[in-house]
Structures are given as structure tokens and as C-alpha cells.
């Protein structure tokens, strides 16, 4: 039934889907409020500090956007694979591989312009992330392995591989910390507005979202990938090489997640450290589902999650509600988005049994 509901996210009644997402968020906030109330705190207070911390000042908004960027790009990666019928749980692993690629290229001093160096770093991330995703992609398309399991297990490999690199080959010489050397200044993403931390990663995210939207809206490639996702057998019958298309979708998805890793390193961290992001692959799935698999919707849903994270800190400081609490809201919102389309069917079935 869950699968059927997620399948229902295909198609194009946009306004209904937007309503669905908003309804999911409201229900998430409502039940989250019930939980806050049970802790003896007025939920309206809590939400006031949450919203204030998220969008209450220009500084707060920029922090929210900074949290939005990696969530959104990984969300796009999940959407791309899901359109072709592959559930990419491996966003986190591909994200780490991308950041490794960007770190390797970014730490080398190169006599080229900043634009060229940044593009090289992104290319490295695309290649690293894409090839890493090709492993589960190949196993899924040509060998029938369940991609949910392979991508999830590969996440651990990627995370531990990163730790290995940071304790060995990539460790900054002469330090005790498990971190890489800092990126060359030419490899960093500049701020969009000088004096703030808001970097060009935002532009990369927005452009990617628009490109992916048009790929699925207009191009024959998007049509074919979506055909595979909706009915693999029918696509095969109509002459598609479904295996190759699935592999391709997975590689592109991994490349996108890789870009997210690179952008985070080049825009925020400036160097690779262990566990600098935790659970981004799963959050990407939440972003994709709340957006009803619409790439433009991912901009909004990623901002919602980004703002939620950011506001959580202020909520914790002000009234002592743990910041981990926002994960409950996030989970509830996604839960309702997936659940609601099944409600009419459930009612019908119940009536039918009676």
C-alpha cells in the first residue's frame, strides 16, 4: 500500500500535491504540538521560537538556506532515481564520495581561475558519486539485487572509507585531527552576498532543480526514465533497454548526491572531516517525498526541513525543547504525505468489508 501511495506521486495534478504537502506539514506540526504539550510546554510558544529562529532575521534565513542546500540537492538525487523506479537510500554514501572527490581536487594548488577550479572539483564529485552509485545500479539492473539493501550497506563503506582516508592518505600533514588539508582558495564557493556565508551552492541547487524539472517535463530521456519507473515491463515491450536506463538513472542520481557533498565542502566546511554530515541520505528521501517527487517542489520542501533544523536550535535554547524534536515533525509530515492518498481507498475497503 505504501508503494502504491508513492506511485501515486507520479502524475501532474500539481495543486493537489501542493495541498497534500501542506496538509502533511500541518498535521505533522499539530501532532508535534500535542507531544510538546504533553511535555508541559505551550506548543505555540515552542513554535514561535522555532519560526523566529528559522526565519526571524536575515541572519536566521541565511542559516536556514545553508542547511537547505545539501538537503535539497540530495533530495533531487533521490527524486531522479525514484522516477526511474529505483529507491536510492545511498545518498549519504554518494555524498561522502563526492566530497572526497572535491577535496582531492580542491586541495591541489592549480594555476587556474576560481571558476575553472570549482568546475574541476564539481566534476570530480560527479565522477566519484556517479561511479559509486553505479555499483548498486549495476547490481539492481543487471543482477536483480535489491537496491535498498545495497545502497544502505554501501553507505557504511563510504563513511568508513572517508575515515580511512582522513587517518591516512588525505590527513593534513602534521596534525592530530582526522581532517584533510584546507581547500585552496580557488576551490571555494564564493558568497553570493559579500559578508555573509550564503554561497554559490544555492545557485547550483536551484539550477539543478530546474534542469531536472525540465528533463522530466520535456525531454524524451525523462519520458523514457519515467516509463521505466512506472512500468518496467511496458517500457521494455516498447523497445527500451530498461537495464541500461536504470543504471543511467542511478549514476546520475549518485552524481547529483556527489555534487551535494562537494558543495558542502567547498561552500561551508573548507576541508573534509569525519562525520561532517549525518543522515543526509535519509533526509533527502524525506525531502523528495514531501515534494511529491517534484524537483521544483524539492526547493520548498528542502527549505522547510532546513528551516526546521535551524529553528530547532533557538527553540532548544529558549524553552528547552530538544532540537532532536524537529525530527519528529519531519517524520510525521512525511508519514502523512505518504499516508493521506491511501485514506479514501482504505475507507472504501473498510466499507466493502462491512
Amino acid at each position, binding site marked *: 500500500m505504501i508503494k502504491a501511495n508513492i*506511485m501515486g506521486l*507520479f*502524475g501532474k495534478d500539481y495543486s493537489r500535491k501542493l495541498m497534500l504537502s501542506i496538509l502533511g506539514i500541518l498535521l505533522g506540526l499539530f501532532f508535534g504540538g500535542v507531544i510538546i504539550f504533553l511535555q508541559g510546554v505551550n506548543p505555540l510558544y515552542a513554535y514561535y521560537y522555532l519560526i523566529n529562529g528559522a526565519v526571524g532575521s536575515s541572519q536566521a534565513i541565511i542559516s536556514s538556506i545553508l542547511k537547505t542546500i545539501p538537503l535539497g540537492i540530495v533530495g533531487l538525487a533521490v527524486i531522479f532515481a525514484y522516477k526511474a523506479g529505483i529507491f536510492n537510500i545511498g545518498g549519504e554514501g554518494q555524498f561522502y564520495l563526492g566530497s572526497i572527490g572535491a577535496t582531492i581536487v580542491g586541495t591541489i594548488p592549480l594555476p587556474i581561475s576560481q571558476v575553472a577550479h570549482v568546475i574541476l572539483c564539481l566534476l570530480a564529485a560527479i565522477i566519484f558519486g556517479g561511479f559509486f552509485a553505479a555499483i548498486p545500479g549495476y547490481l539492481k539492473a543487471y543482477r536483480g539485487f535489491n537496491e535498498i539493501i545495497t545502497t544502505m550497506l554501501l553507505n557504511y563503506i563510504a563513511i568508513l572509507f572517508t575515515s580511512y582516508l582522513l587517518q591516512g592518505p588525505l590527513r593534513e600533514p602534521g596534525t592530530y585531527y582526522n581532517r584533510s588539508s584546507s581547500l585552496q582558495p580557488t576551490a571555494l564557493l564564493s558568497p553570493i552576498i559579500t559578508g555573509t556565508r550564503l554561497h554559490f551552492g544555492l545557485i547550483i541547487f536551484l539550477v539543478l532543480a530546474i534542469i531536472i524539472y525540465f528533463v522530466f517535463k*520535456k*525531454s*524524451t*530521456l525523462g*519520458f523514457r526514465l519515467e*516509463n521505466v519507473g*512506472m*512500468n518496467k*515491463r*511496458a*517500457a*521494455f*515491450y*516498447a*523497445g*527500451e*533497454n530498461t537495464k541500461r536506463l536504470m543504471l543511467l538513472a542511478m549514476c546520475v542520481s549518485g552524481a547529483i548526491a556527489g555534487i551535494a557533498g562537494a558543495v558542502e565542502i567547498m561552500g561551508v566546511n573548507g576541508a573534509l572531516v569525519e562525520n561532517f554530515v549525518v543522515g543526509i541520505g535519509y533526509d533527502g528521501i524525506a525531502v523528495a517525498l514531501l515534494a511529491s517527487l517534484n524537483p521544483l517542489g524539492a526547493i520548498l520542501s528542502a527549505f522547510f526541513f532546513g528551516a526546521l533544523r535551524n529553528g530547532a536550535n533557538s527553540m532548544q535554547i529558549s524553552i528547552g525543547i530538544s532540537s532532536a524534536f524537529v525530527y519528529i515533525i519531519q517524520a510525521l509530515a512525511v508519514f502523512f504525505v505518504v499516508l493521506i492518498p491511501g485514506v479514501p481507498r482504505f475507507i472504501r475497503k473498510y466499507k466493502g468489508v462491512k
Partner: protein
Amino acid sequence: MSDVLVLEKITKKFAKVTANKDISMNLQKGEVLALLGENGAGKTTLMNCVCGLYKPTSGKIYVNGTEVEIHGCENATKLGIGMIHQHFMLVPELSVAENVILGINRPKDFFLKIGEVESEVQKLSELYNFGIDPKALVKNLPIGMQQRVEIIKTLYRKADIIILDEATAVLTPSEARELYGIVKKLTKEGKSIVIITHKLEEVMEMADRIVVLRDGKYIGSTLKKDTNVKELATMMVGREVLFNFKERTNSIGDIRLQVEGLTLYNEFAVKKLDNISFNLHAGEIFGVAGVDGNGQIELSEALTGMMDYQEGKIIINGKEKRKFSTMESYSNNVSHIPQDRQATGLIMERSIAKNLVLADYRKLPFSKNGLMQETAVKEHGQKMINEYRIKAAGEEIAVKELSGGNKQKVILAREIDRKPDILIAVQPTRGLDIGATEFVRQKLLDERNRGVGVLLISTELEEILQIADRIAVLFKGSFMGILDKKCTDIGEIGMLMAGVKNAHYEGELQ
């Protein structure tokens, strides 16, 4: 002999469809009654009413002389009725004994007294020579043995009326022969058996008496000793609808498709096609008759690149093909109306317009420079809706909203509109009402007259006799013979469908 089961004027309606209409029949103690009919004749529906899966819309059921209302499977079990379904209802991971008590273990017994069950199963197994180990896991048993577990399940529940639905469909010939022996033994112990089947050889082998259904109606009943295969085939298919085809208006052209010695094994290394050879000419309908599951899907998929084959040659328009993809099949101008329109032929969530360009999106005007041309796709959708009289509110409607007949028209429109050289149609009218059926058959005839080589694979003999020019009969993956329609009759084909071949028909093999 006394009647253990009497059905009186049973009618079963689903929404719009009447699956059974006023069917009356009886089952005598200790007899084997065959319920004979083609696919969709309503045999299984009727028996599901008896075993409690369905409730009849009207009519009465008597068990051992008293009128009963059967509310559910449990109820049926209490009345001593057990049914062995075509698809087994077993849990592969559990043992034989565990499967036997599945669903009847009372909740108040906290502990499974599996030892007791095992010894009882052992006793039953010995009584009927089943040779089953009660402790064996079902998944490790061959299909024939699994069927015996199903039989033991009904015996353990003290069933006196046992219904077997297409029992030999999944069995090898030797397993089937063993089943005949088991059925005989069961009747000797006083059980009454109903076998649901469309296989004439099986009827002649097992049944004492035969009831024939067609289109949900009772056609007749006869004792086996008073009838023969030919007569039964005629009763089953219905004489009155036969041979009212139109005379052809064109002559047969060149060879479009040549198949030589095609042999195919499925993924479990079971031979599904065995040395099939034929020629398909331009401007003819070549019908492939046969009972479902004798290699129809494999034949159509081997010819369209969907399934790989091991031996033989496929020559399309004079060019030999080996290991070709579905894409190549498309560019060879071969159209394919697949058997399963929902799972293979259409993408249910997509609109009519997009389903119509599922393959043709590659061409102008539907795409340009890698971009879909939405206006052209929509206009084409509108045009096809008008031309093929697809009942839909518009070309943007998802095909899942359409009725079966209109879904099939979408496929037909797509596959015919591209003007193929070869059209492979598998069960093109399955599940359609009479109007849509006529429409589809007329379109196939139009295509023939246009000079297309049409391969019609159908389990409906009536359809093949109505529109095919030549008829091959597929049985267990090989052609029993290729007959010219002018010099054949239903009885001959019925015998070939059942795998009975005699010297007279040998002469007509090509």
C-alpha cells in the same frame, strides 16, 4: 446413488458481468464429475460459490438433501466441502503437517499438538499411497507432491466433496497419471469429486459424468460412456458461432516471417517451445490455437525480442535475426498486442496520448532534438480516440480510468496506426464484451486485407475459426499440425488441442 450436492438455478453476477446464469446440476456420491468449459465459461466461479469464496446472487444449494447457505470457507469445510485451487494455498516455509492445520488450529490450544497432526497425516498418506513425509517442508516438495498436501488438507478437514480446479494444469504427464489414480482411490473411499477442466483428454481419463458450461450457462450433461472427444469439443466451444467469417478479399503475398526450428527454454530450464516452424505470409491471418499455458506467451515474446531463445531461426522480411532486442523488433516494423494489456501493453498512470506514443515518441513529429513535442502528442491522441472510438473524456485521461475494451483499443490504435508489416496479437479479445470483441476482430481482418502478416495467438477457438486463414495447434510447446481452415472442423482441432494426434491429420502437416 444419492445426490450429495445439488445446485438449483445458481446465478452469480459481478457488477455488470453475469458469470453464471441459472445453472442447475447435481453431484452423486462416489462419482467423478467433470465441469467442462473454455476459459471464462464460469466453471471456477460456480465452484467458488460452493466452497464459500463467493455468495451466489440467487439460487439454492443443497448438501446431502438439506438446503444450505454457505457463508465462507469455514462454513463450507463444516459441510464437508473442500476445494483445491489452481494456485496452491500453501506456505512454502512450513512443514506439511503445519500447512495441514493452518487456519483450523483453535486459538485456545496454546500449544500446537503437531505430533498428533503428523501421525494423522501419516495415516492419511498411507491410506491413499501419497508417500508424503509430514515433517517435510513444502518448499522442498515437487509440484505434484504439493498438490497432494492440498488434498490431504481437505481430507484432514473430513471433506466428502472435493473440488479440483484445473488440477493437471501444473503437473507433468506422469504426475497427472498418478493423480488419476488418487482420484479413483478417493471415490472408492466414498468421496465425491468435481474436476474443473478444459482438457478433453483429462475428462475422458477421469470423469464418470460431464457437465458442460459455456459463457456462464449450462449447456448439457452426459455420461462419459455415451460421448466422445469430438462431441464434447463441439459442446464446449459451441457450434452455432462457428464459421461465419467473411470471405477474404485479397490474396496471400510473400513470406513476411519465417520461423525454423524455434526452441526455447525458460529460466528454470524447462522446454517451453519445441522445434516450431512456420511461415507467415503478407495478407493472411495465421491462427495459433491451443489451451493456455502451452507456450503461447513464449512464442509471442520470442518473436518480438522480449525473450531469448536457444535454437532455431527467425527470419523477418528475409533477414535472419538472432538475439534481437525489443528495439530491433520495433524497427523491423513488427507490432505486438501483448496478452497482458495492463502489465505489459500499457502504463496505467500515463495518459492515453502518452501511451499512444510509448514507442513512437522516437519519431517526428512526436519528438524533436530529444524533446517531446507535447502538442503533436496530444493531437495524435485526439485523432486516435476518434478513429478507434475510444470512450474517454479526453486524451489526457490516464488509461487506468478506461474499461478493458477501451484499454485494448488504445493498444490496437498504437500498434496498427504505425502500419506494421507483421502484427502479433496474443489473446486480443480476452475479457472484452461482444462489441469490443467484434471491433478488434474486424480491425485484424482490415489489417490482413491491407497486406499485413497477422499472427493471431488465441486460446479461444471460436475466434481463430472465425478470422484465421490457417490454423496451427500449439500443444506443450510444439505445433501438433498446421491446418487449412477450409478442410478442418472443430473436432479435429479440439483433439489436437488435447494432444491427440492421429494418422489422418498427420497428412495435413506442412
